[in-house]
């Protein structure tokens, strides 16, 4: 693909990067990324992916913009309150970069539509705010052999990993085989989150997506990053493929998508299952 003068101007700062170049820019413009959730994580991720010239971005979210979202969901403006988040997000992304095609899915991800929704994309970013969706996204990515870049936040902490079971890496269920029982994890409105923490983790998701598309750097597959905003500390744990994983293990028990019910329908924040202080434990020891 020959870059136009306008594209050369728009992307010049990344075209001149070693191992990006015009070829990398073309990879970006041909890439299709599905973002689950146009909220705290999806917002910064989508903005940076659009700015970098990722050609097609799918935005899925069944909610409308609420004033309480604006503290962290930077795709949306005060005047967007009441609008579908995916439509508000599309407007913002296209104003930033009209070259990007934004496809919108103003519906909840279900076991009936999940595989169909993601199958046309190269890469999936999970910025969802509840466990049922998180497990659905993971399982759908496993069955469709899509790389999943997973981010989660709560209060002052965040976590990040990349799941590539199709490339011999672990999946989300290797880390957490089943959703935690209702009440086990603090609910959304009780918990709270610092907006900038969503920004940090969402941007890491965008960063990992760009690396996966360009095929550069060290992937986060098999690694779990833990971020603490109060200490400004990062810890990293190894995540190993779990041979007894119910989805991608040696004797899988999950053969099709499972629909879990929402334990907290108003849940607004992606929940952390882990809050380790020891960086060198494996996920299995940790769980």
């Amino acid at each position, binding site marked *: 693909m020959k870059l136009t003068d306008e594209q050369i101007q728009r992307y010049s700062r990344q075209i001149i990067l070693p*191992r990006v170049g*015009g070829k990398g820019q073309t990879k970006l413009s041909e890439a299709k990324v599905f973002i689950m959730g146009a909220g705290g994580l999806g917002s910064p991720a989508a903005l940076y992916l659009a700015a970098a010239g990722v050609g097609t971005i799918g935005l899925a979210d069944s909610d409308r913009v609420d004033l309480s979202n604006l503290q962290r969901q930077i795709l949306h403006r005060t005047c967007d309150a009441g609008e579908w988040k995916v439509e508000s997000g599309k407007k913002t992304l296209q104003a930033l970069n009209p070259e990007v095609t934004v496809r919108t899915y103003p519906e909840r991800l279900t076991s009936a539509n999940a595989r169909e929704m993601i199958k046309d994309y190269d890469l999936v970013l999970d910025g969802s705010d509840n466990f049922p969706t998180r497990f659905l996204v993971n399982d759908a990515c496993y069955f469709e052999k899509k790389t999943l870049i997973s981010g989660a936040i709560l209060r002052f902490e965040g976590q990040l990993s990349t799941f590539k079971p199709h490339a011999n890496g672990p999946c989300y269920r290797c880390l957490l085989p089943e959703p935690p029982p209702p009440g086990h994890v603090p609910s959304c409105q009780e918990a709270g989150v610092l907006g900038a923490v969503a920004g940090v983790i969402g941007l890491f998701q965008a960063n990992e997506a760009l690396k996966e598309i360009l095929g550069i750097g060290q992937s986060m597959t098999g690694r779990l990053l833990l971020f603490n905003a109060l200490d400004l500390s990062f810890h990293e744990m190894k995540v190993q493929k779990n041979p007894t994983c119910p989805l991608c293990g040696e004797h899988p028990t999950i053969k099709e998508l499972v629909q879990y019910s929402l334990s907290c329908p108003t849940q607004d924040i992606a929940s952390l299952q882990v809050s380790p202080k020891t960086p060198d434990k494996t996920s299995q020891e940790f769980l």
Partner: protein
Amino acid sequence: MLESEAEVRRRGEDQSGFHEVGPGIAGGEALRPPIDRELDLKGKVCPYTFVESMLALEEMEDGQVLRIVVDYPPAACDVPQSLKREGYEILEVRKINNTDWTICVRNRPFEE
């Protein structure tokens, strides 16, 4: 293998339509490297002179020589410096008339 000046000049003209003026090639003093491609960046300013040079090199074979023509004075200094920093071999920088410079650079493999 070294090519004659005339061959170099003819090839440059055939590929890019660029016609060199002034004392540049006609002088016939030192032998110039064979040119595989010419890139006319007259009218372009930094950093696009550098960006477009990189894009052209990326499309060329390892070891081939690109001759870049610029008329933006800072580019005559900055483009060779930046290319050198990226690991390219600068073969020659030459003022060819009152307004233009040519920069000859040898390509290296693109790191994917």
